[in-house]
């Protein structure tokens, strides 16, 4: 049960090649996470060591794409942390969306799409979907394709349904998906108002005039330098009075964050950009 371990020199070499050859700058990812992720990718794909890993991605663009997908860690369930979704349903969305036209919601890393579909289902239940435009960015082209097709892992059905019941007393999550023997897929009309943006790690292209950003449990994979860069970009994208939601154990932690945001809910990590 000895696992393959990547040395620090090999880790740095891999980061350098991904930067020089592919223009993906992983050097400000959290080091432990990056190293462990590459180790697991090497193990799962039988690539044996760092050299074969580099060969693998250089010779086969699909290997590189599947590596990017692996780095955009899957969200393990729909409606993760039901309490934040209850807050959205009962207090936040019903106050900020009605009356708004073209209410823009951005997912800066949409990864496997559960937060996007959860939000779409919530808006559908609240009958607010028609006012909303989604923007979904990802480093992974494969994830974007998968989300557009609506595929999800049928083994997640049970946990997804249980979370749904913690939020909604009416209806069933199965109103929104179709399940076959080894396949399950969402009703993709839920996300027809979504603009997908393929990005590398440093944003060249991001939407403006955003009223709500959902970016939960993605910054944990970055170090403080990259976290701060994302926080600044997100602050620029938000309209004054716009909301930012991050993960339960993430924090907005840079030198002027107190001047930039009001805390709406500490326990659910909901913040509001100040008006001036």
């Amino acid at each position: 049960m000895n696992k393959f371990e990547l040395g620090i020199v090999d880790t740095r070499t891999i980061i350098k090649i991904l930067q020089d050859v592919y223009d993906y700058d992983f050097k400000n990812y959290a080091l432990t996470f990056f190293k462990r992720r590459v180790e697991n990718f090497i193990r799962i794909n039988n690539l044996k060591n760092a050299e074969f890993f580099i060969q693998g991605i250089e010779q086969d663009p699909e290997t590189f794409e599947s590596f990017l997908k692996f780095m955009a860690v899957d969200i393990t369930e729909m409606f993760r942390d039901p309490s934040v979704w209850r807050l959205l349903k009962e207090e936040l969305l019903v106050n900020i969306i009605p009356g708004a036209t073209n209410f823009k919601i951005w997912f800066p890393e949409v990864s496997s799409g559960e937060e996007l579909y959860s939000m779409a289902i919530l808006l559908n239940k609240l009958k607010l979907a028609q006012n909303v435009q989604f923007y979904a960015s990802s480093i992974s082209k494969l994830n974007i394709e998968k989300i557009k097709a609506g595929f999800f892992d049928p083994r997640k059905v049970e946990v997804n349904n249980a979370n749904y019941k913690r939020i909604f007393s009416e209806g069933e999550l199965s109103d929104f998906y179709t399940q076959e023997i080894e396949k399950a897929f969402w009703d993709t009309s839920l996300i027809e108002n979504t603009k997908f943006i393929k990005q590398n790690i440093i944003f060249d292209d991001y939407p403006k005039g955003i009223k709500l950003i959902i970016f939960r449990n993605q910054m944990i994979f970055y170090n403080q330098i990259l976290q701060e860069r994302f926080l600044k970009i997100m602050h620029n994208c938000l309209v004054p009075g716009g909301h930012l939601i991050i993960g339960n154990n993430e924090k907005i932690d840079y030198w002027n964050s107190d001047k930039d945001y009001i805390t709406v809910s500490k326990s659910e990590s909901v913040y509001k950009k100040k008006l001036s």
Partner: protein
Amino acid sequence: MYKAVVIGGSAGSFQVISKILMSLPKNFPIPVLLCLHRLKHVRSGFVEALSIKSGIPIIEPYDKDNIKPGIGYLAPSNYHMYIELNKRIALSTEEPVNHSRPSIDLTFETAAQAYRDKLIGIILSGANRDGAYGLKKVKQLGGVAMVQDPNECQVKTMTEASLKLTAVDHIFTTQQIIKFLSNLK
């Protein structure tokens, strides 16, 4: 001389960990990293319950918090807790390991890489094998590997799995663990 202690436990470990924390002096010289299996939908209550009698403050850290001496860091529910080489906490929502998130193996393995021979790893009572591999890494990288005496454990699976994988330094009762920690300077 030691820079951190990392403790893993599951079923049957709550009272043991409570006793250990209660015994620690306010000026305990090193941080205590706690990875205990817990219910994922119950976010609050656990850290409070552990804090009541603890001699040191127990917190559920935020991502990238600095690790400080004399503080207990409890892995938050539904996150893995890694220790970065620069002695910060890093949280992760990666898939469960050994059906567990937080996984004791991951906290132990990353703590071992960060603290090497300056780490004490302790596995307590528990009902699965999570932690066995992590304790092995602690030992491999020069740290002290310790398990609670299985005869004293409410559930032995976790300590026995650890003993099978690693020639540990100590098999201790709760009282002996407390005595060992009280001698740390």
